């Protein structure tokens, strides 16, 4: 499905060999960090994690289209690959899984990534509000900052998604709705979750152009997201992209997929590994060789080690922050509670 007008200009430029190699490096870094994070959980370094195994192409490819000088991304809790691609500090990002601070320790304004949050579809409306703010503020060059919001097939059942699509279309807001349809909402498969065949099909009802793409083909994802951004940035309103992918791992480190799907089903659903696909493409086109792949993996391992060290060094936040960060202007009741807490917990 493709109801988005054909892109022109920069958005239609093919990816250069250097960019393709960069995409591969990013995907390897994300894959390695993702699988390591599961290991960290098993080792007791972090209490929990939401893996994204198999979704590297969808996340890296879409995150690659973001202009962090003007755009803003609204994630849920499974967008580590997007964050890494956008250059977010990964120790600060992982701190939410370390249970250091809800939302993570990175600065959302600086990184252009809204805090991680667990109410699926909760942030989809935020993207519409932020995007409408770009319209209201206007820009000197006539090119708007674009909001990109991530959600899944499961979240597409939430009313907020429908309100967001309607609001965005009515207000012609520069939003890219990026749906990662990974086949599963924890244990419920897409066919028992999404009526109407696909999330992309729903966009037509709101008059929103949509693309349904192979979410495991990183090149297709980059191209689609760039087209969508160009469309929204020029003031043409929202776009919906449904990237068809597959959640190869569990929903979270507490989940047991064996209770709702067989290994055969997993193999069938997953198809070819998105990393392997890009690797074959790079080899066939003579863009990269085995030495490059080895180097990319070595860099990913070094990066993971650095992040793990950072995470392990991360202590708890001081308890006073619990009280200090509720409001910009605190209240006497909170001050009193903080004073009591100090008195009763910090005595020696």
């Amino acid at each position, binding site marked *: 499905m493709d109801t988005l007008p054909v892109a022109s200009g920069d958005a239609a430029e093919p990816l250069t060999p250097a960019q393709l190699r960069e995409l591969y490096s990013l995907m390897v870094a994300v894959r390695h960090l993702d699988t390591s994070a599961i290991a960290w959980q098993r080792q007791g370094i972090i209490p929990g994690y939401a893996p994204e195994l198999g979704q590297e192409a969808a996340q890296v490819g879409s995150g690659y289209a973001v202009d962090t000088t003007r755009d*803003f991304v*609204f994630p849920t809790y499974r967008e580590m690959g997007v964050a890494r691609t956008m250059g977010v500090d990964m120790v600060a990002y992982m701190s939410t899984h370390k249970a250091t*601070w*809800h*939302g993570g*320790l990175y*600065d*959302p*304004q600086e990184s252009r990534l*809204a*805090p991680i*949050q667990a*109410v699926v579809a*909760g*942030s*989809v*409306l*935020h*993207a*519409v*509000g*932020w*995007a*409408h*703010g*770009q319209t*209201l*503020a206007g820009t000197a060059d006539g090119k708007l900052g674009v*909001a990109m919001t991530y959600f899944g097939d499961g979240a597409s059942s939430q*009313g*907020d998604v429908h*309100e*967001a699509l*309607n*609001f965005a279309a*009515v207000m012609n807001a520069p939003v890219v709705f990026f749906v990662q349809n990974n086949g599963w909402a924890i244990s419920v498969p897409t066919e028992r979750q999404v009526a109407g065949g696909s999330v992309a099909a729903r966009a037509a009802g709101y008059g929103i152009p949509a693309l349904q793409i192979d979410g495991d083909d990183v090149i297709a994802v980059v191209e689609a997201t760039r087209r969508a951004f160009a469309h929204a940035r020029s003031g043409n309103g929202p776009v919906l992209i449904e990237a068809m992918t597959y959640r190869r791992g569990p929903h979270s480190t507490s989940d047991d997929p064996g209770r709702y799907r067989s290994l055969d089903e997993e193999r069938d659903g997953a198809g070819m590994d998105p990393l392997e696909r890009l690797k074959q493409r790079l080899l066939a086109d003579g863009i990269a060789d085995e030495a490059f792949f080895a180097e990319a993996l070595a860099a990913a391992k070094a990066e993971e080690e650095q992040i793990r060290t950072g995470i392990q060094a991360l202590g708890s936040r001081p308890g006073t*922050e619990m009280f*200090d*960060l*509720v*409001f*910009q*202007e605190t*209240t*006497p*009741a*909170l001050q009193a509670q903080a004073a009591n807490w100090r008195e009763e917990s910090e005595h020696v």
Partner: protein
Amino acid sequence: MSNSTLESGKVHTPASTTVMSMQQALNRALDEVLAENPRTLIFGEDCGRLGGVFRITDGLQAKHGEQRVFDTPLAESGILGMSVGLAMAGFHPIPEVQFDGFAYPAINQIVCQIARMNYRSRGTLPMPITLRVPSFGGIRAPEHHGESLEALFAHVPGLKVVSPSNPHEAYHLLKYAATRPDPVIFMEPKSRYWQKGEVDTASHDADGGSPTGAKVMRAGRHLTLVAWGAMVARCLQVAELAAEDGIEIEVLDLRWLKPIDTAALAASVRKTRRAVVVHEAPLTSGLGAEVAQLITQSCFDTLKAPVERVTGFDVPYPSGDLEDEYIPNIDRILFGIQRVLEYKRG
């Protein structure tokens, strides 16, 4: 109000005092807020061309433009969720939910998002959102058009709650709320929208009080009636009647339901040694329980009787025909006062 004004020795400036209804006072406050801060936006259902079903935003779109004052699709979660994004983009949204009962469909965005974003983002994404909610009963409205949600909102960490009781308070409290960096739920007593009163536009607290504090609306020495919103006017009526019997009642308008001005509460009750809390919301787990506990904690040694509550009942808000039975009326408040005055230790 006049008593405390006289007590503090300050005098109103006549030139800045105008008689207007609460609807006009709110409208004027919004007009001025829009003029003073170009980042403020007013939006919701029917608040643009129509000027709101209660006309609170009357004329504001024509004056400030369709970008600053606009109609949204009919979806409360959408209105509040959009407010989060606009606040993140540097705006100061003043959204409206048309009636209190329609805040329920937006509770997820209010509780999980608006109230938590400052905390979640470690103070980097403040939520300067003033949510206007036409609140409480008294207008014989259909179901869901008259609810008292203050305890629900006040219970949520990250929200502040305020309710004005007269045009003067409405004007100033709204202007104050709309300049704060934190989310404020602004509960407008819809039964008071058309009541007129003096508004001193020059001075918020001519009696020297704090803009975040409670306010003594009538001084007395025998008992404190604690109320907010529409119940303040009713309590003032009760105090007037009681005065005929020589009972001098102090009426404390709590104004801020979160944070509660504990010091003002304590000061009043330490003086009168007796208190009755009056609210329209259901009794169980209502804000009256919180107020009573705060009084107990700060005035236990001086209290002459347990704090009484005169409230709505633990029933769904009734139809118009039964409304007068539900909302605390003068008789029920007088009975509450009597129970406290006649209390004998066992």
